[in-house]
């Protein structure tokens, strides 16, 4: 039995403009020590899918499908049961550490609170364990700093504090929602290195949500590419980066400015991010895809194993060969 198994996860929001299907048909399985990277741009639904798993959706949101943690469905649990798992077995870190930490409480209070609630430790034991973890995430002078307030830490250090808080109960799964987007690139490198070390030392499974394919390349074993709330392509990191078989993945890889590329022009994907309230009937990427035809716009492509590699799943009417040609041509210019 996998540690985490997600089957046909969907998220809908009831809005003024009608029912918005933010996420549709997410499937994945995660075991100990594995890392899954969920990649997408704005409107792809990447954050909403994990928020649904953790029961953190907004009040007008509804999750469908299953999110199994060791066989138990997180989506079907009552809040009291979910609370025993959240923060304890499955922990989450967010994008902006300033707004995710309570500015009115010291770091010590916030950390010991977690231990007191989940592990029933008393204040002294909780404090000792908190300092231990702050050391593990390489916060200098942890014993002195633990009494400080969040605003007294720099951005990178606050994110480390968040990671330390997430690891207090030695969770089996760590969900990181764009943890380094708001940080400088040198600090980002430190945080990614830290996550890698922690994974090696504790065997935590990590779900990393990001729009930065570079971060994914450095950290993740499996990659899922989302667009317009649906999975476009899913597979091992090597197969996605070296053998992308979906036009969106090809476009994304071509659009990223990369240090190792030689001065070529960036391949831009034409058009604009999807309007989730008004998606086409068929493939959400069809409006911007150079290989799209009427079938793409009217009929939703199913997520099926690829012909060139059954371990890769892709949702596209065009064949893998046609997409490979597109990649070779370095097609689209906007």
């Amino acid at each position: 039995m996998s540690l985490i198994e997600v089957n046909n996860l969907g998220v809908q929001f009831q809005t003024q403009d009608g029912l918005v299907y933010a996420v549709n048909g997410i499937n994945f399985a995660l075991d100990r020590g594995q890392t899954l990277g969920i990649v997408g741009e704005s409107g792809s639904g990447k954050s909403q899918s994990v928020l649904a798993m953790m029961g953190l959706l907004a009040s007008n949101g509804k999750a469908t499908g299953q999110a199994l943690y060791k066989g138990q469905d997180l989506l079907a649990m009552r809040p009291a049961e979910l609370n025993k798992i959240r923060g304890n077995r499955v922990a989450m870190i967010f994008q902006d550490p300033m707004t995710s930490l309570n500015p009115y409480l010291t770091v010590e209070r916030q950390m010991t609170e977690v231990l007191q609630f989940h592990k029933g430790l008393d204040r002294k034991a909780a404090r000792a364990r908190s300092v231990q973890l702050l050391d593990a995430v390489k916060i200098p002078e942890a014993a002195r700093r633990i009494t400080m307030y969040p605003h007294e830490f720099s951005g990178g250090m606050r994110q480390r504090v968040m990671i330390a808080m997430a690891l207090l109960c030695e969770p089996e799964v760590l969900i990181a929602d764009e943890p380094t987007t708001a940080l400088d690139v040198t600090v980002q490198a430190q945080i990614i290195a830290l996550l890698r070390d922690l994974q090696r030392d504790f065997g935590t499974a990590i779900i990393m949500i990001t729009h930065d394919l570079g971060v994914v390349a450095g950290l993740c074993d499996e990659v899922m590419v989302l667009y317009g709330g649906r999975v476009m392509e899913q597979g091992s990191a090597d197969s996605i980066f070296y053998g992308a078989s979906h036009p969106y993945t090809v476009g994304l890889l071509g659009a990223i400015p990369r240090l190792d590329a030689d001065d070529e022009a960036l391949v831009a994907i034409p058009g604009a991010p999807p309007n989730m309230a008004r998606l086409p009937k068929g493939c959400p990427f069809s409006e911007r895809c150079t290989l799209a035809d009427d079938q793409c716009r009217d009929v939703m492509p199913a997520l099926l194993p690829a012909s060139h590699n059954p371990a890769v799943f892709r949702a596209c009417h065009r064949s893998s060969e046609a997409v490979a040609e597109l990649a070779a041509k370095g097609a689209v210019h906007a």
Partner: protein
Amino acid sequence: MRDAAQPILSVRDLKVHFKIKSGGAWPWSAARTLKAVDGISFDIHAGETLGVVGESGCGKSTLARAVLNLIPATAGSIVWMGQEMTSASSQAWLAARADIQMIFQDPLASLDPRMTIAQIIAEPLRTHRPRMPEAEVMLRVKAMMGRVGLMPQQINRYPHEFSGGQCQRIGIARALILEPKLIICDEPVSALDVSIQAQIINLLKALQKSMGLALIFIAHDLAVVKHISDRILVMYLGHEMEVAKKKALYAAPRHPYTQALLSAIPIPDPALERKKVIQLLQGDLPSPMSPPSGCVFRTRCPVAIARCAEEIPPLRRLDDQTEAACLLA
């Protein structure tokens, strides 16, 4: 007739210091100085792009605003088209502003939400060429919209009806409508999705070529500036660390900070990433109110020596491609 070798903009030893009163102190207590920009020098020639790169707090945005006199410079000189601007009158600045324009980081926030994009794009024309007939103004606005990839029929729409990328195109149209000589781009793509970033970067490059613009492209991402810059200036805590031609900087960075920055950028290639050895910088960014003595980077530098604390290393020309401010370069 323009002398091609003469720079259009020459900045020498520019300093921008802010006086910060610590909250709660007596009204007469001395204010502390925040040295946002502390001695930056560079030249820009017609048609070239200078990328200015640095992390948060390095002063690059302040530098951009000081060059345009949106924030007054504390010291140093700014020479635009041969004219010294730091002591210039507001009329001289007004004339200069027709030729130096700016594009901002947050595309939606830089547009007045209560004005139509026709009014927004036409505003420079109305300010600098008030006698232009209305019909001509509208024609120029529509032509510019077409050039930046917007549909001219959208002319009466409001900013909130557009996506982020389209708003940035509106900002670019507004900056270009006077056909300036220099555009300062303050992190123009940081707030945009990756697929849209590429569109905007390609657009800027194409427009630069067709209109002969010089660009100062400010970013925090060295990978982004690689695609658009001829030369790159690396800033740290208000000081220049390295200025080099693009190929030289990326192939053989001379300053330890540049080396650390380059090694830290993640590459979307799993094999390369796994093999990569990152030079991790220790510590945190020092406060700009109390920068370290000598070289400001020494507190985090992996190769700092004792002498680095004693003297501020000047920006030395190492060869015809690179200048670096490091005693050990």
